[in-house]
């Protein structure tokens, strides 16, 4: 069960879009900041395969400017 967290910074003016897109992803929890253009993303996937797919999806999001890893954890 890999668990990761990131700070996601949206492209200018795209915070709402980014939040919607992230919220629609499985294994993904978000916490948008109230007063800054930044979103906390926590992912928790059942296995490595799903994790890989999710990471690809994340980095492929159009509304995303940058994604920085802040925490990682894996049982194995």
């Amino acid at each position, binding site marked *: *069960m890999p*668990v*990761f*967290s*990131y*700070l996601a910074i949206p492209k200018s003016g795209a915070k709402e879009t980014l939040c919607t897109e992230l919220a629609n992803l499985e294994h993904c*929890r978000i*916490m948008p*900041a*109230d*007063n*800054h253009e*930044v979103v*906390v*993303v*926590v992912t*928790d996937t059942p296995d490595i395969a799903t994790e890989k797919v999710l990471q690809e999806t994340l980095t492929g999001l159009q509304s995303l400017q940058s994604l*920085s890893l*802040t*925490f990682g*954890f894996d049982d194995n």
Partner: protein
Amino acid sequence: MTITIDRRRFIQSAAAGSAIAAAGAIFPGISFGAWPKVAGNTGVVSWQKTPCRFCGTGCGVLVGVVDGRAVAVKGDPNCSVNKGLCCMKGYHSVQALYGTDRITTAKIRKNGEMVEVPIQEALDLVAAKLKETRDKHGKDSVAIYGSGQWTIPDGYVASKLFKGCLSTNNVEANARLCMASAVTGFMTSFGIDEPMGCYEDIDHANVFITWGNNMAEMHPVLFSRMLANRKRRTNVKIIDFATRLTRTSQAADTSILFRPQTDLAVANAICHEIIANDWVNWNFVNEHVSFHKGKTNIGYGTEDHFAFTDQDEAISFEEYKKFLADYTPERVEKISGVPAKDIKYMAALYGDPALKVTSFWCMGMNQHTRGTWINNLVYNIHLLVGKISTPGNSPFSLTGQPSACGTVREVGTLTHGLPHGVVMNEHDRQMAAEIWEVPVANIDPKPTYHTVEMFRALDRGDIKFIWIQVTNPMVTMPNLKRYREGAKKDDRFIVVSDVYPTPTTDVADVILPSAFWIEKEGMFGNSERRTQHFAEIVKPPGEAMSDTWQIIEVARRLGFEKQFPWSKEDYIEKIWEEYRKFHAGPKHEMASYQVLRARSGVQWPFVNGKETRWRFNPQYDPACTNGKDFDFYGKKDNRAWIWARPYEPAAESPDSEYPFWLNTGRVIEHWHTGSLTRRIPVLHNAVPSGYVEMHPEDAAQLGVVNGEKVRIISRRGEIVMPAQINGRGVPPRNMVFVPFFDESYLINEVTLDAFCPISKQPDYKKCAVRLEKA
């Protein structure tokens, strides 16, 4: 399984935490919040006072309002009840306004379906049906059933309409299920209702004895005041006298367990010891006490049309002493299971002249088939040693609803009651007729049905129209199945005023949307004779209307404009000032509307601008006139009455077929039937479901572990629910405990509708059940 989930959640939150910490380092001043935000919030919060909506403690709370919405709560530091501290229900109370299934429009039943209609149309129907039923079936075929959550004006207009205008005494309130025995206890012992002491007793007493009363969960603000006192003063003890171990037992210095119903025997044994050791306060007893006995073998009221009238007979002290001879601690040990040494210990605490003793009780003593008796017996103890009506010496009967005292006991919204006195008394009827501007002949001198009998009458068809406000009898009536079937019968017409859908609105023919708590102006009255005003702080949603105004609308449709002339702008003030006339005089004087508006609660009697904290004591109570150190002016002989009341068994006790006691009650998170607290996310998510609490050995014998289903079967019905073992409460062997807040587990289908023959209050704490693994 659970461990995995917790672990994942822990790691997830650690992950989120470190991301947020990183964000905080990159963007100073960044903020997050877990709740949805009020749009366009200016940050200016206006704080307004109100009593809490829940229990009878009557904590003052301040509600924070932004843009017409209640957004926060804090304890009211100006309110002497709680001095700025609330409990979890108070702090989250305002969330109960915002469940998304609020009833905001009226609904009427058309061809079996509930259809939304304008509220005026629904009120037309209510008035028409009421009139039609009354014309066709007589004046006593219509009824109103309210509650201790009615505001004082709600109860007052209900009584005025039904008793004064419609000439029926079919006015009852759920407080019958909750403090009727407290009332008859006060009336028989003192001749006047409500506690002589006040919460300040807690700051003076050395010994607290809780009689069947889990105060730590039910009256937590008062309980923590006791704990604070124990910490601050070294000479304070808390004795928990109970039938099961609870959080109160855990915090108490000593916990003494007794078998259900045997509190009667133990109380008598304490008096026996007080006399045997000559701890009697003779100066007090000779001056201020008289001795009496009443009928015995008085029955349990399980049959329809049960009637009982007690008859008092004066006895001498010697006769009383002889009566107590049966109650030696050793003999009572056999009945009660309480070791004789523990009985002697409690007697010694009451008897020690150096100790100030306060007794607290609530439903354990009131929901009791000998509820009036056990109230009398605890007063006996305090009277024998003269520990009463002085700071710290107090037999204190607590209430469970915010206005059980204010609306039901003071306004008299019970079948025999009037705002002053009782319908049986000619003078009281005249007073009511005069103030209400109705002919005195309108007020029927004969009481009709008490609550259990009222629902029996509904089942039988003697009552065909009932209007239920602010309460949920289809969860709370004992032996529930009979009364639900009765309410559903074809030609019964049920009107329900409420704020959320409940099992009671499910049986309604008309649902009226009510304004909730601070969505209207009103007053509550708490356990210590304190009247507490609250203004309309936020607007009611949709067509929701105060219960008072609903009754006024119907009264006017029935042609009583003269009795209900008020305008929407100031009706609460006008009603209060009219009601206040009933209580003129030093024994019961109420504060004016202006004073109530300005203060965080005012204690009555409020005489010459002063609150009365200890009644019957001339140092504090201006109604005392006999020139002595106490004046028990409620009784004609100016004395408090000690009653010889024997131990009699419960209506139904465990036997070989049904070997367990069933005890029911509450938990701190939920209030009553949970229709409000379950809509408060924090509280629901802490205790989301009902359960049956079992002794670990009983559970092992039955072969159930925590969370497994148990079938509870009584002679009335059965229910399947999850077991809780070694939870916050532990019953003794052969007892189970079930909280009643969860409407998906209707435990009252299992309980028995036996009641105290004097108070007519049912016993929810004792009936016999057997258990099966489900």
